[in-house]
């Protein structure tokens, strides 16, 4: 069996390549899957960072702007004080107003040149200023530079309403009247208030905002939404003269997490799933390949087995369609499997003469009861017949449902030949023994009859001689001289008659042993013998024996002999006929008027020429080389013993019809006396 080169089969030869491509694709797919979320995260991260920077800048600007406004207020106030137009009470008024405007301001005081408090935003004018060293330094710097200066934030005392440890930052605004220093305005910021007041809530909500000094020491912190995660941070120096403060924002947002995690999670899960399924697929495929290999091996083995079988195999489905044949079967019938497969009966190898037989069997098989074993013959394309023995068995699938019929077909030509040889041998033996018996009988009969006949002849010749001699000499014949001879002749004639009678008596002694038998039982009994003959010449036998026939009142053995003889003649008459015409029919009918059962043996053979027909029943007449010429004679004698008749006539369809009749058992009596042979 040839396998067409399939795609899968081609791939099998390039196994590494087959795996390389999907693996590469998978890797690419996975890397893209991993890279995309990473990239997205990266982009989001950048975006957030930029947002943070922008917001931080904005906050810084806000703080700076507020500080600048306060600086300006103080400068204006300073300018007014310097002009000397303002009384201390109105300064206090203005300072208080300033404090109200800027809640980040803890305190604003007006110091004179001696450092005494001239006015304060507080209600009470306390002299207790408690400036930190850093603040004092800033004050000095401011005076010297003629410009406002911030002091580095530090803890200060003197602020009872401020929480302890509060970082405070002083702004010193020196006041000059011309070039003359006339005092300072000192504004004290609570550093934490800077953040609390000036950072908008929405920013504070997302970020931890700190103000740190040069040493990263935290001056103030606002962490409304908890501590920052240190992922998105930005530092921005606050541009405040004299002080070194940096705004540090730290987003509470951690790395962008949820979505990427989901993505990565799903990617990993999917990848794992993919890998698993791929592995499963690979294992499945390898299992399938193994199974396929085993199957192919099995298949090859089976094919080899089927091919080497000498038994023909034929499978048919339930409709009789041929679904499988093996080479041995094809060889047997001489057709290729293409010519047979898928065919419905009639099959090309059916012999025409046995068509009915096949059809009957086929119909039986369709009905569900196939003949399990039978012999038949098939026809090859060249017309030769091949005798076969067929075993038929139902073909059952794994569910126990019958799907068709499986037949093993044995070519039994050899067996048939041996059988035939045996049969011929047997026949020869029988013939020769029969010949010997017949010869002996004939010779004995001849000898027995010869003596009296010869004697009679001699006596009469002698008597004639005497009469002649007497007439020659003119003397009358003496009756006494002739008498003994004639008496003797008569006696011998009597003796001859006696011999004949004794033979007759001998034959008559084998009176038929009559029984009531069914003609079909008789035919069945010798059917095997007839079949044996028929198969030799590929003759098909058709029986037309109606079951309603009455029983015969006859000697079964004799009728069997007659049937055997007639069928044998019929079969042999057809040995040179065309194969399709080799059909012998056995037909029985009831002649009610004569109360006889009539049996016809009908052949389609060479027929009987007129000259042969005349002598057909004569003893020792035969058209066969090895025939004794007694067959038909004996048949007729046997039938006539029964009170019947044996006749023959030409078959209108060609060939001959031999007909014999045998008395039937009267209907009423027959039923009770039926012997089951």
């Amino acid at each position: 069996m040839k396998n067409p080169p399939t795609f899968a089969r081609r791939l099998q030869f390039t196994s590494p390549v087959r795996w390389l491509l999907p693996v590469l694709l998978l890797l690419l797919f996975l890397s893209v899957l991993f890279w995309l979320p990473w990239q997205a995260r990266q982009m989001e991260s950048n975006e957030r960072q930029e947002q943070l920077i922008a917001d931080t800048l904005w906050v810084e600007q806000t703080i700076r702007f507020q500080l600048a406004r306060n600086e300006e207020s103080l400068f204006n106030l300073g300018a007014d004080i310097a002009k000397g137009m303002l009384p201390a009470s109105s300064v206090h008024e203005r300072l208080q107003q300033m404090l109200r405007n800027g809640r980040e301001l803890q305190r604003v005081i007006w110091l004179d040149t001696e450092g005494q408090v001239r006015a304060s935003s507080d209600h009470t004018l306390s002299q207790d200023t408690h400036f930190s060293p850093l603040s004092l330094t800033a004050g000095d710097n401011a005076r010297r530079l003629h410009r406002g200066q911030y002091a580095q934030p530090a803890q200060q005392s003197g602020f009872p309403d401020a929480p302890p440890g509060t970082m405070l930052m002083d702004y010193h605004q020196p006041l000059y009247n011309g070039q003359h220093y006339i005092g300072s305005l000192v504004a004290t910021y609570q550093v934490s208030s800077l953040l609390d007041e000036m950072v908008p809530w929405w920013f504070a909500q997302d970020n931890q905002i700190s103000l740190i000094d040069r040493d990263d020491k935290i001056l103030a912190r606002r962490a409304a939404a908890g501590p920052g995660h240190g992922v998105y941070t930005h530092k921005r120096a606050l541009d405040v003269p004299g002080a070194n403060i940096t705004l540090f924002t730290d987003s509470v947002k951690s790395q962008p997490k949820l979505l990427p995690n989901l993505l990565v999670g799903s990617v990993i899960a999917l990848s794992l799933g993919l890998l698993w399924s791929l592995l499963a697929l690979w294992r499945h495929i390898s299992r399938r390949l193994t199974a396929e290999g085993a199957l192919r091996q099995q298949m090859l083995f089976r094919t080899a087995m089927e091919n080497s079988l000498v038994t023909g195999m034929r499978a048919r489905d339930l409709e009789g369609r041929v679904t499988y044949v093996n080479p041995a079967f094809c060889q047997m019938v001489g057709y290729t499997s293409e010519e047979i497969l898928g065919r419905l009966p009639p099959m090309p190898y059916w012999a025409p003469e046995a068509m009915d037989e096949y059809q009957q069997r086929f119909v039986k098989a369709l009905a569900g009861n196939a003949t399990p074993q039978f012999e038949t013959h098939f026809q090859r394309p060249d017309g030769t017949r091949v005798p076969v023995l067929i075993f038929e068995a139902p073909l059952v699938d794994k569910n126990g449902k019958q799907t068709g019929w499986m037949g093993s077909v044995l070519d039994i030509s050899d067996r048939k030949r041996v059988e035939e040889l045996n049969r011929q041998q047997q026949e020869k033996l029988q013939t020769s023994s029969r010949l010997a018996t017949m010869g002996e009988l004939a010779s004995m009969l001849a000898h027995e009859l010869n003596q009296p006949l010869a004697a009679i002849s001699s006596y009469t010749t002698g008597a004639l001689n005497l009469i002649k001699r007497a007439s020659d000499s003119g003397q009358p014949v003496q009756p006494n001289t002739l008498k003994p001879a004639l008496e003797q002749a008569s006696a011998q004639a009597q003796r001859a008659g006696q011999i004949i009678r004794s033979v007759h008596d001998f034959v008559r002694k084998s009176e038929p042993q009559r029984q009531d038998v069914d003609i079909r039982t008789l035919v069945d009994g010798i059917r095997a013998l007839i079949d044996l003959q028929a198969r030799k010449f590929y003759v098909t036998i058709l029986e037309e024996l109606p079951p309603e026939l009455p029983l015969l009142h006859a000697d079964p053995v004799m009728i069997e002999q007659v049937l055997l003889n007639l069928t044998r003649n019929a079969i042999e008459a057809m040995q040179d006929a065309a194969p399709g015409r080799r059909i012998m029919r056995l037909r029985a009918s009831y002649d009610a008027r004569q109360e006889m059962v009539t049996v016809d043996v009908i052949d389609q053979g060479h027929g009987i020429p007129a000259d042969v027909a005349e002598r057909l029943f004569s003893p020792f007449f035969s058209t066969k080389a090895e025939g004794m010429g007694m067959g038909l004679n004996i048949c007729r004698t046997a039938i006539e013993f029964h009170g019947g008749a044996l006749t023959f006539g030409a078959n209108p369809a060609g060939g001959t019809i031999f007909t014999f009749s045998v008395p039937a058992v009267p209907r009423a009596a027959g039923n009770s006396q039926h012997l089951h042979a």
Partner: protein
Amino acid sequence: MLHIIDDEEVVRDSLSWLAASRSIEARSYASGQQFLDSLDGTFDEQGDCVLLDVRMPDMNGIALFDQLVKRDLTARLPVIFLTGHGDVPMAVDSLKRGAFDFFEKPFNDNDLMDRVQQGLANSRQAGELAAVHARLATLSTREREVLDLILAGKMNKVVADKLGISMRTVEVHRAHIFDKMQVKTAVELAGLLK
């Protein structure tokens, strides 16, 4: 004399009757042995003939014929075989060995009798020949020489000259020869020894 040898009495009887109707003297024997026993060295002057059935119990026709051949009697006793169906090859064989004839049953009776008469004639001649030979055998050597010359037609004188004996002696021999050969004249002698 016709000798009928058959185990069947009816055959012997009918053949005897037939022979009688042709004026042939016949004698019948029920077996071969009976016939052999009857042989005493003498023969019928009218000649003998044997009708022999091939199939007989005890000693069959062929065995009897073998005996006759052995005794060198077939010339004096011409044998006619009567055979049944199937005995022909055997009969032909015996014919080659000196049997006179064979008849297959059933046979034409008068034909058989004709052959019997020929057989009798042959037997008669054989008997005469045997007698002449027997007489010749009695002649002395000298008498044979004289006989030969006489048969050659020589006169007594010529014979005497040839044999270197006297005329008288020749005449004595001649008288002896005639005497022994039971003839009276030379012509008769020549006819006998033809």
